[in-house]
């Protein structure tokens, strides 16, 4: 086969501008790649983010504590429910097929509430992104939060940027060994406690904590904990910014949310350029404020240069703002050379106009209205949620049965859901068909309503046989109405009664 593999070409093309010299042939580029290893992927350039102090870093630390706090502590909140029900505030109970969230208890049939919640989350994300850029990515995304935590651990063992670079370049020694082993061990502990915390959302936390260690927890708990340990360790420890750049679809989607008026971490090129080194005492006239100190680059956890403008890799975390402000203060220049700003504002300043920040734009209105509508719909649905649901399923085979006295019988299964925590007594009555009688299998037919009791938090499947005398059957399909009444309320369910055309016989 003589197929010229396209990626070889690309690799060559990439290599060309980087050298800056004469263009090299594809063949040469491939050979060069062969020397550095397999040519199937671009090797990751290691990033050593430097520690920075400042307003945004402080906010990020605070949010890290809050979000991790919520994640780890939520399953441990207890909530009083009637006896027999789980006493855990937030619980996804797969075995019992219920979802508990504080005072709300959802059944699998009501999964649309979860769908609604996800739609709300998506719309809220759209709105926030169109207003303030990728705040989610920079501050609240688990990938960012855990990566931040892992980098902090790394710093603890291996020191800050320069020390880490030196350590990685050095030969193996006892010092390097214990630092590396220590770092990975702590990473694994964090990863395990992350995976371990996840499973508490699905089982009673205090019970699971005990059974987990003696090997009596369900297999799913061990598997989930194991898988999440590995993914946390892998994603936050070794993959880091590659997850955002290559794996996550969100940066691509966000291109559609952001416009020129969205706030983003922005290098104010109107003020910074032309950049260049600055000696103390030198005049600032005729030059930009950027002194090319590279601090914004070395602190960036994504390894990019914000001065190249908005980029797909940028997670909008603002650490470069802190880094730059530190330098500006030292240079006694105004801070905010890098800041949360908009492309339009930078362009306006360059044109010596007053920058405007219109928060109300067509897209923010659309997202806002959609978000409000879905939220109201959800609130309405939750507020008017019935504790009882009533469904009627008519037998399909046989559709009807003719008895030897000429009357016709249809079979139905009534599903009565009692979503409350009390036993409920109901009466099932029949309407719409004259002379029809009702019976449960094995009982005697009667025209009187059936009395049933449904246990708390249970569904009763009640089989009912309805018999109608030939005189009342005028059409092949007659309307039949089941009414469920109890506790002063009634639920109607319209079905049909099928028979062959009696008149034709």
């Amino acid at each position, binding site marked *: *086969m*003589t*197929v*010229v*593999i396209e990626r*070889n070409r690309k690799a060559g093309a990439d290599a060309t501008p980087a050298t800056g010299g004469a263009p090299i*042939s*594809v*063949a*040469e*580029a*491939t*050979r060069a790649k*062969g020397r550095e*290893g*397999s040519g*199937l992927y671009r090797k990751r350039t290691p990033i050593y983010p430097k520690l920075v102090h400042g307003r945004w870093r402080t906010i990020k630390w605070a949010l890290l504590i809050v979000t991790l706090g919520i994640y780890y502590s939520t399953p441990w909140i207890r909530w009083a429910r009637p006896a027999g029900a789980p006493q855990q505030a937030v619980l996804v109970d797969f075995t019992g097929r219920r979802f508990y969230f504080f005072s709300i208890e959802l059944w699998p049939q009501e999964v649309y509430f979860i769908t609604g919640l996800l739609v709300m989350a998506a719309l809220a994300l759209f709105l926030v992104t169109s207003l303030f850029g990728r705040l989610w990515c920079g501050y609240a995304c688990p990938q960012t939060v855990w990566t931040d935590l892992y980098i902090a651990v790394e710093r603890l063992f291996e020191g800050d940027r320069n020390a880490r670079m030196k350590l990685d370049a050095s030969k193996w020694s006892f010092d390097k060994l214990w630092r590396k082993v220590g770092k990975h061990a702590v990473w694994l502990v964090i990863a395990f406690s992350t995976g371990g915390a996840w499973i508490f959302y699905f089982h009673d936390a205090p019970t699971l904590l005990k059974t987990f260690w003696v090997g009596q927890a369900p297999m799913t708990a061990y598997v989930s904990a194991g898988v999440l340990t590995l993914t946390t360790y892998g994603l936050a420890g070794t993959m880091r910014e590659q997850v955002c750049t290559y794996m996550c679809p969100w940066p691509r989607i966000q291109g559609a949310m952001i416009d020129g008026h969205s706030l983003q971490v922005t290098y104010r090129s109107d003020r910074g350029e032309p950049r260049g080194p600055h000696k103390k005492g030198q005049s600032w006239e005729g030059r930009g404020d950027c002194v090319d100190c590279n601090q914004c680059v070395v602190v960036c956890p994504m390894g990019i240069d914000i001065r190249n403008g908005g980029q797909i890799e940028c997670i909008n975390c603002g650490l470069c703002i802190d880094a730059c402000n530190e330098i500006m203060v030292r240079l006694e220049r105004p801070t905010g050379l890098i800041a949360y700003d908009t492309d339009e504002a930078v362009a306006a300043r360059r044109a010596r106009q007053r920058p405007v920040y219109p928060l109300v734009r067509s897209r923010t209105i659309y997202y806002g209205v959609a978000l409000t509508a879905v939220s109201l719909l959800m609130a309405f649905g939750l507020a008017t949620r019935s504790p009882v649901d009533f469904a009627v399923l008519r*037998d399909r*085979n*046989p559709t009807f*049965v*003719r*008895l*030897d006295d000429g009357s016709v*019988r249809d*079979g139905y299964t009534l599903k009565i859901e009692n979503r409350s925590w009390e036993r409920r007594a109901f009466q099932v009555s029949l309407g719409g068909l004259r002379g029809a009688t009702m019976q449960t*299998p*094995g*009982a*005697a037919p009667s025209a009187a309503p059936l009395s049933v009791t449904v246990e708390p938090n249970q569904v009763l499947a009640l*089989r009912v*046989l309805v*018999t109608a005398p030939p005189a009342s059957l005028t059409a092949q399909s007659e309307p039949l109405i089941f009414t469920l009444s109890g506790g002063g309320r009634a639920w109607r369910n319209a079905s049909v009664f099928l028979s062959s055309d009696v008149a034709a016989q």
Partner: protein
Amino acid sequence: MAERDEDETSGVETTGHEWDGIREFDTPLPRWWLIIFYASIAFAVIYWVLMPAWPLITTNTPGLLHYSERASVMREVAAMRAKRQAEGAQLQRATLEQIEKDPQMQAYAFAVGQSIFGDNCAVCHGQGGLGGKGYPNLREGVWLWGGSLEQIQQTITYGIRSGDPNAHNSQMPAFGRDGILQPSQIDDLTEYVVSLSHRPADAAAVARAAPLFQSNCAVCHGAGGTGNQLVGAPNLADGGRQWLYGSDRASIHDQIWNGHGGVMPAWGRRFDANTIKALAVYIHANAGGQAS
């Protein structure tokens, strides 16, 4: 080693072989692929040691774990049997009526009955139990051999003409085929059977057939033709909606001539008593008509 042979255009090393001017790239295998390849080899070796793998002359290497798929299935079957035994225990003690009236036992009997019915009975009686020509309808309350719980249980257990000594064995004679009656007499009897359900019939033929009916048919079907469940003789005076072989004149004539009678297996040989109890309750409770 020979000189590296490289492709001019791409710079990728080739295998050095040439077929009709076509050479093959010697692209290095991806690292992830190699890792998986070596891991598979390691896995295979571990598997040989732990699991049954190599065929020998009469048996195979058992492996350290002594795993056997068949043994595992048999264990599961045994476990399921034990579970059913435990769940069916209350059916064993209870009478059929108690099972039908008790909501919990009824629900269990329905679950068992529905599955057994679908796998075994539906072939002839239909998924909904409505039967067909030659196969009785189990839903409409007309019973050849009796529709009480005990009668249904009896019929299921021993079957009909199944060869079992306790089966319902009676059979209608083939009056025409075996030459018991003359063809003209069978024509007259056909008219007589039609008249039993108050349908218009040839009065002269009916009059001629009346003594014939009393001497040949009444012993099973009764003097008034109302049938007898002890011998599975259907009621001939009910209009014939549920007759197994049809109620028009041709069908009646054919039945008197040939005396059709089907066979139902003795299910007691295949299922335990609890399963048959469950099945009887399932059929009885979902059928119309007769209470026990």
